Structure formats: structure tokens, C-alpha cells
């Protein structure tokens, strides 16, 4: 049974529940152990879903579950933009 939370990194609801069981209960911690939110969509799909699961499992309200840190780039970029040879 697959309930997909993060399509970019193939992270399921089961993966999230396991991580919560292991004591990872903030979105940043879950991101660090599972990579969800670090794929090409940068969490646009999964953050609201993970927030809901964490809130339910930890008895918090969605407002109490803080967002993970957002860093640039906000869109997938080609490495050659930074690392290629100068023309």
C-alpha cells in the first residue's frame, strides 16, 4: 500500500510514521533523515501533508508544527550554471 507524501523523493506516509516513531518530530529533522522537501519541487507538495501527519501523531496543531528552513535555489538548476567553464 503506497500513500505517497513526497513524489520527488519517493517518501511514503509509512516512512514519515517510522521517522516520528524514532523521535524525529520536527519538519527539519524529518527532512534531514528522509530528504523529503529537498527534491526538485522543494516541498511544495509534501510540506502541507507532512505537517498534517506530524500534527496528528504528536497531538499538536498545524500552527505549532514549524516549517523547515528554505534555502536557495528555489527551483532546480543545472550545476553547469555555477561550475561550467566561463565562455
Amino acid at each position: 500500500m503506497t500513500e505517497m507524501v513526497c513524489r520527488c523523493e519517493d517518501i511514503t506516509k509509512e516512512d514519515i510514521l517510522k521517522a516520528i516513531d524514532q523521535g524525529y518530530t520536527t519538519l527539519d529533522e524529518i527532512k534531514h533523515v528522509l530528504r523529503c522537501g529537498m527534491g526538485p519541487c522543494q516541498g511544495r507538495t509534501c510540506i502541507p501533508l507532512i505537517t498534517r501527519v506530524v500534527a496528528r501523531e504528536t497531538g499538536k496543531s498545524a500552527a505549532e508544527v514549524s516549517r523547515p528552513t528554505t534555502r536557495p535555489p528555489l527551483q532546480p538548476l543545472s550545476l553547469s550554471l555555477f561550475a561550467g567553464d566561463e565562455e
Partner: protein
Amino acid sequence: MRITEHPLLSFQRKRVIHFTFNGGPLEAYEGETIAAALHAAGIKVLSRSITYSRPRGFFCAIGKCASCMMNVNGVPNVKTCVTLVEEGMVVESQHKGVLKPFTGPKKSHISHMKTQVAVIGAGPAGLNAAVTAHAYGASVLVIDENPHAGGQLVKQTHKFFGSSRERAGTRGTEIAKILYREAESFVMLQAAVVGHYNDRGHRLVLVKDGTLAELEAEKVIVATGASENMLLFENNDLPGVYGAGAVQTLMNVYGIVPGNSVLMVGAGNVGLIVSYQLLQAGVKVVGVVEALPRIGGYHVHAAKVRRCGVPIYTSTSILKALGEEYVTGAVTVSLDKDWNHIPGTERKFDVDTICLAVGLSPSIEFFCQAGCRIAHIPELGGNTPVHSPAMETTVKGMYAAGDAAGIGEANTAMMEGKIAALSCVKALGLSTLETEKESKESYEELRLLRSGSFGERARQGKERVFAIMEELHE
């Protein structure tokens, strides 16, 4: 899959284009995105996922969800839902995250640009903001990653409600054209903002045509819109599970139907309007399911759908999508008053499309990265940038407008765009005798737009946001 007859829309298809998909020849029409052209040819599975090799197709169709990425002309990870198909293009699926060796374009010099007002997003809020600031003589640059300007207006074929001046009675598709005509000379399409740095004012990093550019702006108006919400259910990642906005884009922008028969999830206004639009396009809608015990949308929309013989099932949720490679069916289940599934109430529908109309979340990535204070306001769709009535966020010189500032609708988005632009005009010292009057009228117009009972939630949400902003200033 292409619509040939439609009661409202006519699709003037342009030149035929030839391209290949996984080696096979295909045809498309000029102006279509790669994902739309593939869908028209019946191809729903675009690539495969990174770990489990599950089929992947697009979900949002507006460049947000990144599920549509493919290899195009040898370049991996191209978002095919916002990339136009071109003659001779070589389009290939990506498999399990395996990237072919790739020699990209050589690193080019980073170009520098300057503007007084940078607007991110060319939807109703962004375009109206840009037109307003430009009218006062500010230099303006609007950046949007889509190939078409107008944001989600380009697919709204229904006539607008609303009070008066912000074009009530006009179809959204027409409003988009009018706004773009006024703003065209300062809109940059197919360009993405990938970062914000606030050393020396506001510096934005853009990517356009595979090169980086730096944009120095005195003021930034962020009108990045919203992402469609996903739901958790079995096989929710199968191609054929689409956001309601994606279905509208396919149908109303490209004239392509999403499938032959659809189950709609969500009976709010979006779910009801899109159901009706599907029927107009000749697609069968087997039913609308709604988890709440009542229909959330306007009665007039619900009545229209019901008159066409589409049942609306309240207190019902989607349990799973059926299918291996793409959706071949859906199973729903009834809910009790505590949202628990009631065993034995499962109902199976033979559909090839499941359309999710379960709300939107503000696209706040840019605000977050720039360090704006965010608050969770359920009335506005969840995490929202804290802002003042003048639309300024907690980062000085950065403004929010439209859905990105809390979910509303297109009329209020246009008004917020205008207010944000007038705030910039004042801060830049470009005010004229008219500015204060126009500003007052805009606040009043926005108040009127939110005065009805359906504007109540947004009104309450905004009041909470303004209160947080005030507290922070004290």
C-alpha cells in the same frame, strides 16, 4: 484527447510541430507545452520515480509540483509542463533518477539588471501591480516561469462575480488578455526567480534561457500564487490523479481533455466549477465526493452540476486509486461524524481521472527564503506571510499580493496587487495628487469584495494577519 467542439471556447490551433518521445515520432501544435502535447497523444506516464520506479505524470501543470520532469534534447530535469514543444525536440523519460552524462551549455557571464519594482508572478495580482506601478512612472519588471502570462486567469472561463470595477461579468480568460496587453513590454516569461539576497537592497537571482541573471530592485512584490493541495490515499501518486487547476489548464488553455471519465474530489467552488467545465468539454463526471457533511461551494454552481445528472456525495472521501501505470478506477468510502471510514460503504467507480479540488496553499517559498515572518492562518490556506493592510511583509520593501498573501480569488488578488503597487509608489516618492485617492478607493473596493458571507473567512484571516503585524511593530 483534443477538444474539437466547445460551447464557450474555440481553439485556434497553430502550426503542426514534429517531435519525438522515447524515439517515436509525435505531432503537436505550436504553443502547447511538452506535457500537454504528450497528454493529447494519450501519454500520461512521463518518467519514473527515483527509488521505487513508480510511474510519474504531472499533477499541477503550472510548474510547481515538479512531477513532470523529463529529459529534453539531452538536458535532464526539464519541467515539461511549462516548456513549450519545439520542432525536432527529442523528449525522453527519466528512469529511476538515472541521469545520462550531460555536457551542458558553458557557464555564461551573469548579467545584471536594475529595476525599481520587481514583481514575481504574472497572474492577476502581479500584472495589476505592475500596470499600476508603471502608470506612476516606476520602472517595473515582472518575472514568471510559465510560457503564458495571466496566471490562473487564463483558464477561468466563467464570468466573474464581484462588485464592479474589477471587471465583474467578464470571463477570466478575457481579463488575462486585457491585463497582459497593458503589461506586455515589461513582462519576462519563462524565467524563474531562484533566490533572494538582501545585502545592498533586494537582489534577486533569475534563470532565463539557461543563464543566470542578477536583478537589483528597490521594491519587490511577491505574487507567486498558490499550490494545489494533495491528499493522502492509496496510489495517490498515479498519473491520472490531477489537481483541479491542472485539469482546467489542460482543457481551457490547450483544449485537451484529461480523460474520458472523472471522479471529482471536493465540492467547494473549484470542484463544482471544474466539474461543470468538464461536462462542457464532453467529459463524463461520475460524481463529486466531499468529506464535509455539506457542499462548500455556491448553491448556483452545485445546482448546475446536479441538473446535469452528476451526484454529489457528502461525508464521503476517496479511499484509493486503482491501476498499475495510471488510474483505471477509484474507490470511495463514507465517513462518520468523527471522520472515520464506515466499513462496508466502499463504492467503486470506473474512471481514468481523479481530480483533486481540496484547496490551495499559498506559495510562500520566496518569503521564507527572504526571512519574512510566516504565520499559520487556516482561513487563508495555512502558512501565510505576515503583512500589513498596505501589503508590506516583515521584510522592508517586500510586499505580498494575491493567493501568495493568503488564498482568496482573482478579484481580491487584483485589488491587493494594486494596493501593493500603490504602497511601492508612495515609498519610492512617485506619488501624485491622485495616489491617495486611488489608494483609498482600492481599500474600499477590497473591503466590498470581502463583505459578503463568502468573503467572511478571508476577512477573518486577514484581520488575524494584520493583528500579528501590529503586535510585531509594538
